[in-house]
């Protein structure tokens, strides 16, 4: 697939299918993220967006199709190998280490990235490199004050920020964000956008979001999913104009938001 390309795509998904019994949650999904892509994935509830992230990260196995990460075939690779190759994600429903402190949560990602998670000596709190990196990440999201609190005691919105800090700690080449702004107050959501904008230029980012303001501000290209398939793909302007997209998603969404 990559033969003839100068630089391999950061992420390339070809003909991905996934069935849960009779339910087809992914049908013939193909798309490419170039290095530095700022891509949004939108679609109504139940369209299969989270399932797609699960397929790419290896949490679910595809029924058929292939996934390449930086030119390497990872269709059958183990989860942890994909991460080592530069793939990171966040969870729509945050998935953290509840009994541990915020700093410990972030440190888990930092030590895993630095490949020092095997070292049985030298207390974590005396490793200046770890402590400094944790501090940098917490400062980025302005959640240093929560460093000592257990994640279990945090509010929902703050957990989302910790979730993001973990993903960034991995310094990924491809970053998949599953509804990072859901449940965040307006101020945090704007802050989030600011942070996303400042991500290193070469990182390919795929963000799933229902917050259209964030999507239109952040993304350069948009893919629209509907009932497990890709309905449309194009630039922000193209997607905004597409009547079909308006029908299944934007229109529906607008009604929905007005109602609530």
């Amino acid at each position, binding site marked *: 697939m990559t033969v003839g390309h100068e630089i391999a795509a950061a992420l390339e998904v070809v003909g991905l299918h996934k069935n849960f019994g009779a339910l087809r949650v992914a049908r013939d999904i193909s798309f490419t993220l170039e290095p530095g892509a700022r891509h949004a994935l939108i679609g109504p509830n139940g369209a299969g967006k989270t399932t797609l992230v699960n397929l790419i990260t290896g949490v679910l196995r595809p029924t058929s199709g292939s996934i390449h990460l930086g030119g390497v075939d990872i269709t059958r690779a183990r989860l942890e190998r994909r991460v080592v190759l530069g793939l*990171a994600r966040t969870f729509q429903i945050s*998935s*953290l280490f*509840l009994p541990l*402190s915020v700093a410990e949560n972030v440190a888990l990602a930092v030590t*895993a990235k630095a490949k020092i998670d*095997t070292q049985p000596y030298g207390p974590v709190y005396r490793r200046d490199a*770890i402590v400094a990196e944790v501090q940098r990440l917490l400062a980025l999201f302005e959640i*240093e004050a929560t460093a000592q609190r257990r994640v279990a005691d945090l509010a929902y919105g703050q957990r989302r920020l910790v979730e993001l800090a973990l993903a960034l700690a991995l310094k990924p080449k491809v970053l998949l964000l599953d509804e990072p702004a859901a449940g965040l107050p307006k101020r945090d959501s704007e802050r989030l956008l600011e942070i996303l904008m400042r991500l290193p230029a070469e990182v390919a980012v795929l963000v799933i979001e229902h917050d259209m303001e964030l999507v239109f501000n952040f993304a350069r290209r948009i893919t629209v999913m509907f009932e497990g398939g890709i309905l449309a793909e194009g630039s922000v302007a193209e997607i905004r104009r597409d009547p079909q997209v308006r029908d299944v998603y934007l229109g529906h969404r607008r009604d929905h938001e007005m109602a609530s």
Partner: protein
Amino acid sequence: MADLAIAPPRSSVIADAFLRHRLSWSDALIWLVGIAVYFVASEYLQLATQTVIMIIFALSLDLAIGYGGIESLGHAVFFGTGAYAAGSYALYVSSEPISGLVAGGLAAAVLGILSGLLILRVRGLTQVILTLAIATMLLQVATTAKSITGGDDGLTGYRIAPILGQFEFDLYGHTAYIYGLVILAVVFLFCRVLVNSPFGLTVRGIRDNPLRMRLLGVPVTARLLTLYTISAALAGVAGALSAQVTGLIGTDSLSFLLSGNVLIMLILGGIGRLSGAFLGATVFVVVSDRAAAIDPFNWLFVLGAMLILAVRFTPSGLTVVIDRLVARLSPGARRT
């Protein structure tokens, strides 16, 4: 005085957010009591040595269950293996004690790797039952292989040379107790370093959310296998120590009852906090010795009732209860 007014470097807030097993007053107290026993209660030294061995055993189990979340109801298999290995080592290779401990630890570590490869493939109740099944299988092997283990009669008749060629084991158990206490100190310091380290943090992460750990790029099973092997080796050291100071190894060192007892000690004391092993093992060994001296079967009444009441009323262990008491007495104290 002026120094105190200067704000600490900002990162200390972060550094303080990590679990740390600091040596505190309570640690000092434990070791003082340990040394005082030697001088004050010399007629109870055998019991005290027994306690020390059980503390090491409980510490090893705490690494597996409390830190790694590996639920084992068959940990005696490592204790027994360490004991038989140390006994055979003394019989056939050398009567030198320190290398005997290493032999016990190594034998248990090998078994830890082998059984870890099996039990780490499953989780939860299946894991509990599998550890129990492996322990039962080895107990059957030990009972059958009379030429190695002496079967139900036990393995005995080996001699242990003086420690470092200097300190002879005496009839009153003076040397044995100090020997045990020193080994305990070494094991404890090792555990402390381990749980404070990046590896210690990693296994706690795996315990709480293994899928997320994999999505941080950590090969979860490999890390747990390392932890389980370390835990097995320490249990083996405890068994080897027991074999050396008592001069007898029975098949009960592999039994379900021992596996159950050490779990009880750990939960009684408090899980996932090294101090729990100290408190739980001490309370358990002392109470069981007193009660068993009166009547071994009635002791089961006491133990049974104690278990039910302990889980009901102090589900997180005695150390937590003590922490709370201390916190109530000194309102400013920080939680550990």
